[in-house]
């Protein structure tokens, strides 16, 4: 078998749906029915998962380190809030898409700044853009409501049929549907030739350019797409909580996001989803122990993760599942091991 067809074959095999993936989504769906009293926190996890998936697209697949991803989240959140508050677009799904597009436009505009320069410049520029937007939102407090945030947002029924209820049930299934659809799309993208070329760029931009991949155009495309995803996550935040305040742009949000992604693992789409679940549980745990100082323990988790080494950690975590799979199915490692990213 020639090398080219070998690669194609392997890519196709990876793109196929595995049994484990189907099981994962069934479990998520089952959670919606199993814990009816926990809709709010579960919706929160779904939002965070979507947001993290967005960062994974640029960090895990394209290798762009961003410290200001909250910028797009914030734009999406404010867009959705303003649309609903002023009754411009009352229908949530349409407003969601419009908010996502608003973030996407910003993503496209700023992508030209981000693709220039090396890691350090990117860090600074992404961080700067988020801070700039935060300063702008504070400055134009007559539009954004300043530190009080947008208040009195009332959401209309989804598609004119399903109203948001106070237990968050509608919000949960709404978020889940959005997350699942966007996940399907992201999955399609990362397994396409486009997605494979992104990985080539991440591993070695120079070599990728040498084999004819238009590096800058690909990076702009994925950055714009990631901005769209982040905007949708922000809009979901506003729509399900009915608030949008300045802290949507906060640096802590971007920093936490990185932690979530790192806990779950970069470079495979489930990393964001799993990371979001673990992160929220950790947060709950820490804030029950020390309500005020949970940030200390979150910081400690970060430090330990880095010192132990992310890849080693993931190997340990996957050790037992892989052992079980080996025993039961008699084959090797089906559970995806995150790619290295150095």
């Amino acid at each position, binding site marked *: 078998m020639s090398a080219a067809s070998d690669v194609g074959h392997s890519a196709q095999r990876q793109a196929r749906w595995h049994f484990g993936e189907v099981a994962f989504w069934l479990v998520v769906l089952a959670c919606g029915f199993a814990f009816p009293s926990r809709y709010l926190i579960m919706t929160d996890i779904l939002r965070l998962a979507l947001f993290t998936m967005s960062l994974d697209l640029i*960090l895990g697949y394209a290798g762009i*380190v961003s*410290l200001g991803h909250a910028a797009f989240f914030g734009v999406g959140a404010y867009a959705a809030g303003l649309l609903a508050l002023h009754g411009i677009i009352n229908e949530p799904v349409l407003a969601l898409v419009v908010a996502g597009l608003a973030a996407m436009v910003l993503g496209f505009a700023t992508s030209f*700044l981000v693709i*220039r*320069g*090396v*890691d*350090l*410049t990117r*860090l*600074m*520029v992404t*961080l*700067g*853009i988020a*801070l*700039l937007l935060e*300063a*702008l939102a*504070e*400055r134009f407090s007559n539009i954004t409501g300043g530190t009080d945030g947008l208040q009195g947002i009332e959401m209309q029924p989804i598609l004119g049929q399903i109203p948001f209820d106070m237990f968050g049930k509608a919000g949960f299934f709404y978020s889940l549907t959005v997350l699942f659809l966007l996940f399907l799309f992201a999955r399609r993208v990362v397994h396409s030739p486009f997605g494979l070329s992104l990985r080539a760029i991440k591993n070695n931009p120079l070599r990728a350019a040498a084999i004819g991949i238009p590096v800058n155009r690909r990076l702009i495309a994925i950055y714009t797409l990631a901005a769209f995803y982040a905007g949708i996550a922000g809009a979901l935040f506003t729509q399900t909580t009915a608030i949008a305040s300045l802290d949507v742009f906060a*640096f*802590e949000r971007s*920093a936490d996001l*990185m*932690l979530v992604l*790192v806990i779950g693992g970069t470079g495979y789409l489930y990393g964001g989803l799993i990371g979001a679940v673990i992160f929220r549980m950790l947060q709950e745990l820490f804030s029950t122990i020390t309500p*005020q*100082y*949970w*940030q*200390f323990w*979150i*910081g*400690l*988790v*970060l*430090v330990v*993760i*880095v*010192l132990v080494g*992310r890849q080693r950690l993931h190997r340990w975590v996957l050790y037992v599942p892989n052992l079980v799979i080996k025993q039961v199915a008699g084959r090797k490692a089906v559970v995806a091991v995150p790619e290295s*990213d*150095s």
Partner: protein
Amino acid sequence: MTAILTNLFDGVAYGMLLFVLACGLAVTLGLMNFVNLAHGAFAMAGGYVCMVLVNRMGWPFFAALPLAFVSSAAIGIVLERTLYRHLYARSHLDQVLFTIGLTFMSVAAVDYIQGSSRVFINLPAALQGQFDLFGVGIGRYRLMIIVICGLLTIGLQLVLAKTRFGSRLRAAVDDPRAASGLGINVPQVFAFTFAFGCGLAGLGGALSAEILGLDPYFPLKFMIYFLIVVTVGGSSSITGPFLASLLLGIGDVAGKYYVPKMGPFVIYTMMIVILIWRPNGLFGRTAAR
């Protein structure tokens, strides 16, 4: 006219302070290529040490300043030897995550020990108030900052350019492998430089309590300022960060005075424009190799 000069003076004092705070970062980030977002935590440590010594134990302010330097440097060298040095060869992402983690820990720890409100250091009477010089209002405290920071800058420049240690450091930075081949103990040079940078940050933290405000969120609030100084200034010499600090200080003070509504907007825009225009900093070679 005099208002402009007073603003200029305040801006210079502010800029010099930023330089002392950030020049340690210029070495770790610019020269050793290590993204240390926790730099502000060392500054905060120095500030709080000074505050405790002066306010609670009755030390004179000028005696507490050196101790702020020493304590931050000590924390720096312990962390460098135990944690940081394992991360020099790791990816930028790992370094960012690690140092953000440290920052979060320091913020929560100081909050736990000292409370979350802003603290002030009791200044001696000689440093309070201001006097007029040809109609220009000169704050005594700011004048002292300019003197101290100016002397430090000259001292640093001399050490880097003239002493044996300075040439060792420059050699170790230019080419660590060749330097260690010549018998220079590169890790030791880096450890010492790192500790010295942390010490300077600690001193800066103690001095800045009056001007920038000292509270547990100091490392997060001013992280961006330190990063701007280093990335805009470049790292080929100490002059780049110095000029960048002055520019930033004057720009920020002027921005707050003349367009108060725009707030930090001016600074961030300036930074993004400069980084787009010259991705490797205004003065000098590439920061990250």
